[in-house]
């Protein structure tokens, strides 16, 4: 199945920006794109990971005075600010480890070039260690979780810049 690249998304955004339409709903394969001009929010959603339902979910009505409470959506919302950077998110809830074992050098560091197949961290769930692959090509711009911290499902772990298209062989296997 053909994947939409980031460049494609930018192109689509530009087209809608110049058009007279306020909203665009696009589905190609298992990718889903919703663009709303007035809402200033655009999202690319992987249909397998997130149901159509959650796209239609109204924005959270959490008021500022609730900010002392931490909510499951906070981490996801935060990632939206870093436009142009591609997040690598946690595939499960668990403990985040940057290195294969205590004292060892971290898998990746800020400024390091990574390819989609590189291991970037480990998430431990009850003594089971799950390696997390980058899934993108680019350079690590920021590390968003600290070593040994519990991370939630889909919490942003790393932000990657200049994440380009996967090369042909990778795309086939993806």
């Amino acid at each position, binding site marked *: 199945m053909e994947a939409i690249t980031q460049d494609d998304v930018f192109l689509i955004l530009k087209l809608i920006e110049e058009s007279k339409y306020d909203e665009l709903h696009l589905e190609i394969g298992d990718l889903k794109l919703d663009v709303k001009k007035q809402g200033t929010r655009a999202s690319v959603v992987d249909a397998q990971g997130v149901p159509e339902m959650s796209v239609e979910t109204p924005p959270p009505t959490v008021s500022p005075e609730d900010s002392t409470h931490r909510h499951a959506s906070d981490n996801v919302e935060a990632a939206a600010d870093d436009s142009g950077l591609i997040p690598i998110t946690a595939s499960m809830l668990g403990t985040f480890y940057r290195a294969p074992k205590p004292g060892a050098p971290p898998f990746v560091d800020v400024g390091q070039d990574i390819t989609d197949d590189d291991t970037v961290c480990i998430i431990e769930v*009850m003594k089971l260690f799950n390696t997390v692959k980058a899934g993108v090509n680019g350079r690590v711009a920021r590390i968003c979780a600290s070593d040994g911290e519990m991370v939630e499902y889909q919490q942003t772990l790393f932000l990657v810049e200049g994440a380009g298209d996967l090369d042909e062989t990778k795309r086939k296997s993806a």
Partner: protein
Amino acid sequence: MGLSRVFVANRGEIALRIIRACHELGIETVLGVSDADRESRPAREADRALCIGPPQAMDSYLKVETIIAAALGSNADAIHPGYGFLAEQPELVDACAEHDLSFIGPKADHIRTMGDKLLAREMVGTLGIPVIPGSEMVATGNEAKEAAQKLGLPVLLKAAAGGGGKGIKTVNCADDLTDVFDEAAGEARAAFGDDRIFIERYIPNARHIEVQIMGDRQGTVVHFFERDCSLQRRYQKMLEEAPSPVMTEGLREEICDAAVRIARHIDYENAGTVEFVFDQRERRFYFLEMNTRIQVEHPITEMITGVDLVKEQISVAAGNPLAMAQGDITMSGHAVECRINAESPRRAFHPSPGRIDRWEAPAGEGIRVDSHCYTGYVVSPYYDSLLAKLVTRGTDRLDAITKMRHALEHFIISGIDTTIPFHQYILHNREYLEGDINTRWIEDTLLREYGQ
């Protein structure tokens, strides 16, 4: 003794119910939510919500390791499983013990014993409490046929690992038995990973009557009287009431005593429900099964006894003795509960997920609504269809029913189909009002008249 932070391993109305009970007890709550429930009402009311996985329950609400990791990572000291999902998974209880977390529910052994319907039958039989005439395990279609002919047809084929109405098949004709046996065993293997089947005599004019019990670590077991859950469709309860309109004082004492004896025999801890089949023709009851969790319909018991069962569960799990002795527990009035589901009664109760455009719940004296829904809420297709439990309490049965009719009429839910029209249909039926119903009544009589 007390708990300071409870991890809630559930969703929907029961998650909210637990969160509120904890709040009233001064206990913090952490809620594990799937990706589909991040913006849910319980997620907003909990002190903290953690996303534990994707919308599919198999990868979120049903994952023991993830629940334990989330509870430990958020420094909770206890887990409340609610009902459904992991509520009756002994693996979760074992994992809690291993990691020094309190499980707000019974011991793993209680769940194992009662989860095995054959073992439970045998155990209850040794106490001299009647069980439905039936067989030991039957291993083949021919054994099933033999057993059925001895009992007399019709019979029910049940999965030993079943329960809650799952894994049951009715057989009217001996020639069908071998085929139905193979089907039942196959389905049981697929659903429960256990294909053991046993046979029970079918009791035609039966009521489903269950007794709420609670035990503490000090060995005290008390009951909170009975609930009548005879109004079912495909073994799923639709409308419950307490007390049962067919109980006499003598029968009530007998059935409640039987329930307490069963629980005491296994040193049962926390909330549980002992279910009985009441044969209306013979006016006898038989043990059916025991559910080792807080049940959906617990509010009707709360409405007639004034006891907060969820708070009591939390207190008992912390090691406290029960707050009340049997003599302190009294009941007054009558309570009725309607399970409002996102289903279309006119389309064979087909699920009806979607966005709720308008939600206005009734309120007033004697009206209780347990629900996580609101205007704009999207009912997810991933989970069960329960939207709300509407409960009314009146001075007597008719008063409670009258209140319920009024409350249903003023319950406004638009955007999705609900079971409200069907509940109204039940509550205006003469046979229901006269109490002349049984567990087959909705399917055999009412649905025909309703035009299904």
